[in-house]
């Protein structure tokens, strides 16, 4: 029996495709954001409020991933910006090749800001780089404040945690300070914002965050 060292990342192929995307985004000045959360935490609602707030001249586009249906793309297309649905037919995450295919035919030079709504799942999307500039994790107040500890990977890899549906705080026993402390236990540098897409509380802060982050790249 002989043991030989084996080099490289297990997701080498995805990483390679993601690196190509990242280079392409850089070449065309596209700031790409990967939005990740459990199903129903409010990713599409956040994008609705975001697109609604942008003027028509804004060079923004959205790719939205789901296992089945193009319901989210239909919700998002109403705002007049380019939107495409990626249906994964069973896969619990988007990968870099799906993004590449979905971008086909889009003139990247015409896009400054690309939102990618990942498939609803707090685990699987963690491992797949999509060439994005940053990952953002959403945690709604109905999910429990211990989730950052139970699903540490995505909180570790996300630059920003958005605590969503804060309009529901009076109705659910969710300690928002504990949720934030838990996220910081996993990732001390994580940035945190609170938001409601129903009352729009915190929406301006989110819009400023994304512009500032994009400006700084």
């Amino acid at each position, binding site marked *: 029996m002989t*043991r030989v060292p084996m080099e490289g990342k297990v997701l080498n192929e995805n990483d390679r495709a993601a690196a190509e995307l990242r280079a392409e985004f850089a070449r065309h000045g596209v700031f790409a954001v990967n939005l990740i959360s459990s199903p129903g935490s409010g990713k599409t609602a956040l994008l609705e409020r975001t697109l609604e707030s942008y003027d028509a001249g804004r060079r923004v586009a959205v790719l939205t991933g789901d296992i089945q249906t193009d319901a989210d793309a239909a919700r998002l297309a109403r705002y007049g910006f380019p939107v495409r649905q990626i249906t994964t037919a069973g896969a619990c995450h988007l990968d870099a090749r799906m993004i590449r295919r979905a971008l086909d035919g889009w003139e990247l030079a015409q896009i400054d800001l690309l939102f990618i709504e990942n498939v609803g799942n707090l685990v699987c999307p963690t*491992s797949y780089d999509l060439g994005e500039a940053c990952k953002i994790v959403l945690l709604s107040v109905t999910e429990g404040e211990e989730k950052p500890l139970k699903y540490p990977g995505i909180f570790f890899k996300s630059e920003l945690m958005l605590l969503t549906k804060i309009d529901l705080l009076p109705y659910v026993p969710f300690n928002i300070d504990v949720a934030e402390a838990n996220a910081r236990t996993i990732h001390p540098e994580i940035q945190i914002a609170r938001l409601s897409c129903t009352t729009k509380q915190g929406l301006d802060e989110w819009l400023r965050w994304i512009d500032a982050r994009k400006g700084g790249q």
Partner: protein
Amino acid sequence: MHEVGIANGILEAVRKETEAHKPARAVKVGVRIGEMAGIDPQSLAFSFEVLVKGSDLEPLDLAIEPGVLDELEFAYLELEVP
């Protein structure tokens, strides 16, 4: 359940690597997985077992070693020379 895809990726890599060491055959592959990698080791081990069964690579073991943070990397390959 992306662990099936990950297990598949490991098998592909083992095939490729073994090719370079002909006529040896692979008996065990070691990977390092960190706690932040978003991988459930048990679910990966299970997927791996199912995929290996009945394949050209059977019997092949998977050894999962603790990695640093979000590490998800190959560590080694054990080969048997006939």
